[in-house]
């Protein structure tokens, strides 16, 4: 189909540079730099020691190469590991923003104020949004919910942070997790007390003004017994970042009968259509279902980044605990994504569900990599996995690497996988009913990904649908 080539061949141009003035320390990584970071953040000594140990661990590790991705490895000594929170606006008005990027944001239905905020333009907050944010904080406070930056949590709720930091993703876990542990400067902390149902979707939206997203983000989310929280990360608006390497760590802990829904929409700059530039996104996300009947659901829509390496996982330790992973990953041009999940069944009667929908366009490569591990203790464990791949072009690739380890004979593990090419018959059927090619592709792709999109909170789902369509046409009208 010519139109597919044309649509998927379009540029993703947000070609502006940022001229932010920030307080940076010299590039490079050594013990001294880590001490400086920790001192600048006025951290307690336990955290400095923790960072220094992480650094030692990292020094003894090598960058992993098993993922189905190819890229030039970052020079870790060329990165500056500390920059002060962005205080100055990058632009003075929206007129300075790339018109294509604005068009995309308009099409996503992002309001003017929101566009300004996303681009670091100082917003004259109308009374309304100030009061919304304030009443939001008040309400959370009344319920005993803690939601703040991780730096603030270190100061104000040090014992909680100390108790849980690194318990789900240990510093020894992998190369990037060790690096993140040594140098993280930013991120979110959330604690939901016993029996509390968080009444609104928690999103970084409400604290992004205070901190901004960082290169080495660290998120820690604890749901105490019988609590519930839905957490949203990222946004559908295209995000450009001067930092090529992003290595975040997210740790979730769900205690007895607690439930955490964690939804992500990731749309970092993917590089140009020749594969130049773009963010490397090497993330470690893991949730511990610690208590009886606890539940963690990961839902992700991944459309951005040049290289994605990401496996949101669940450790199902509590008996009857439940882990879920719902993912849509779109790759276009020369993007590469190696993403999936790990479901580690330890407790009895633990259940996990994996639904992965890959969409590959252009010359991109999209891999699903998943591990279902049933330990000998996990009597009556169940898993259902479904991994579907949709190819938009003949030049794109889809790969599935399912690993299944079963050590208990009472377990039931089901795996289904399909690969299909977007149907010319389907597109023609839509055209014959009066839809144009863009609408047709958007409809077919969203239909394909529906099972996952349905898991997103309502407002996010609507935006994500538009995002899928736009990502596949390359964001230029």
């Amino acid at each position, binding site marked *: 189909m010519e139109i597919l080539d044309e649509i998927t061949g379009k540029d993703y141009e947000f070609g502006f540079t940022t001229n932010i003035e920030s307080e940076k320390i010299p590039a490079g990584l050594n013990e001294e730099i880590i001490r400086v970071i920790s001192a600048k953040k006025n951290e307690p000594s336990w955290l400095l020691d923790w960072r220094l140990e992480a650094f030692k661990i990292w020094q003894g590790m090598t960058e992993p190469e098993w993922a189905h991705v190819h890229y030039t490895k970052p020079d870790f000594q060329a990165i500056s590991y500390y920059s002060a929170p962005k205080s100055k606006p990058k632009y003075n008005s929206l007129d300075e923003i790339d018109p294509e990027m604005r068009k995309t944001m308009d099409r996503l239905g992002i309001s003017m104020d929101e566009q300004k905020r996303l681009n670091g333009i100082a917003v004259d907050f109308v009374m309304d949004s100030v009061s919304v944010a304030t009443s939001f904080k008040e309400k959370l406070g009344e319920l005993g919910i803690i939601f703040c930056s991780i730096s603030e949590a270190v100061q104000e709720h040090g014992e909680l942070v100390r108790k849980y930091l690194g318990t789900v993703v240990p510093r020894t876990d992998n190369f990037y997790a060790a690096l993140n542990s040594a140098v993280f400067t930013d991120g979110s902390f959330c604690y939901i007390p016993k029996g509390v149902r968080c009444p609104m979707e928690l999103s970084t939206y409400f604290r992004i003004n205070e901190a901004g997203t960082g290169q080495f983000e660290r998120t820690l989310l604890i749901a105490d017994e019988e609590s519930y929280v839905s957490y949203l990360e990222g946004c559908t608006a295209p995000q450009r970042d001067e930092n090529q390497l992003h290595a975040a760590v997210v740790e979730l802990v769900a205690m007895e009968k607690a439930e955490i829904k964690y939804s992500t929409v990731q749309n970092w700059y993917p590089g140009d259509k020749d594969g130049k530039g773009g963010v490397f996104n090497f993330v470690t996300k893991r949730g511990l279902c610690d208590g009886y009947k606890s539940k963690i659901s990961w839902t992700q829509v991944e459309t951005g980044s040049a290289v994605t390496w990401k496996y949101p996982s669940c450790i199902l330790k509590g008996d009857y605990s439940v882990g879920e992973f719902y993912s849509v990953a779109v790759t276009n041009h020369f993007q590469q994504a190696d993403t999936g999940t790990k479901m580690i069944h330890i407790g009895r009667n633990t259940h996990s569900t994996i639904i992965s929908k890959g969409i590959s366009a252009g010359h991109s490569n999209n891999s699903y990599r998943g591990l279902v591990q049933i330990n000998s203790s996990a009597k009556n464990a169940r898993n259902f996995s479904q991994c579907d791949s949709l190819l938009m072009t003949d030049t794109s690739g889809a790969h599935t690497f399912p690993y299944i380890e079963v050590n208990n004979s009472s377990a039931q593990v089901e795996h289904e996988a399909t690969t299909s090419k977007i149907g010319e018959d389907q597109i023609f059927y*839509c055209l014959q*009913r009066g839809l144009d090619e863009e*609408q047709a592709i958007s*409809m077919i792709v969203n*239909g394909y990904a529906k099972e996952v999109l349905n898991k997103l909170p309502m407002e996010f789902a609507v935006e994500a649908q538009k995002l899928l369509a736009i990502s596949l046409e390359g964001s230029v009208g």
Partner: protein
Amino acid sequence: MIEIKDLKASIGEKEILKGLNLVVKPGEIHAIMGPNGSGKSTLASVLAGREEYEVTGGEVVFNGKNLLEMAPEERAREGLFLAFQYPVEIPGVSNMNFLKAAVGEVRKHRGQEALSAKDFLALVKEKSAMVELDGQLAHRAVNEGFSGGEKKRNEVFQMAMLEPKLAILDETDSGLDIDALRIVAQGVNAMRSPERSFIVITHYQRLLDYIVPDVVHVLYKGRIVKTGTKELALELEEKGYDWIKETVA
């Protein structure tokens, strides 16, 4: 309505339509019959604008416009509807959303206002009842898991929703039992009007007992080789296609 002159079309190296002539006036129903492989579906696809088929000659005027110059979606918006011989399934896309988008585009093109959700639902209710399509099916994904008969009725339902000027029905009757056939025919008859034309492609005479055509054509080896009244269909039913083949040869 539509005027086809000396239309030639190929797929790959193979010429399938070899100089086809056909004129359908507003309000008329034309039946096209002919043995398998004579090019009936090809004609339907070429008129709808499928790009696999290369038009190598001739012209088609649709309501005074050059049809062959239009993109497939423009043809649809201009009022050309094709009920597919093999309707495809579109998993995950609800019939309702699909039709809402389609009806929206067509109305926009005609300069009509968008339907309110309430009016749209009322229209769905009315038209789906006309083809006795289970209300459930309207909410399921497009053709997914539909039986053969349900798919065909869904095509007629979509036609009723889109109110085309010219509807081409490609073997909408094949695979239908007599009840389903009656329902489909009822749907078509309810839509007959002096401003609307139909091209009914069929293999069997029996559909024409229910949808009475003004003109019957026989398409054979890419050409219309015989044209007559509905009695021609009866004659074909009785004698088969062999005598036609012989007269052509």
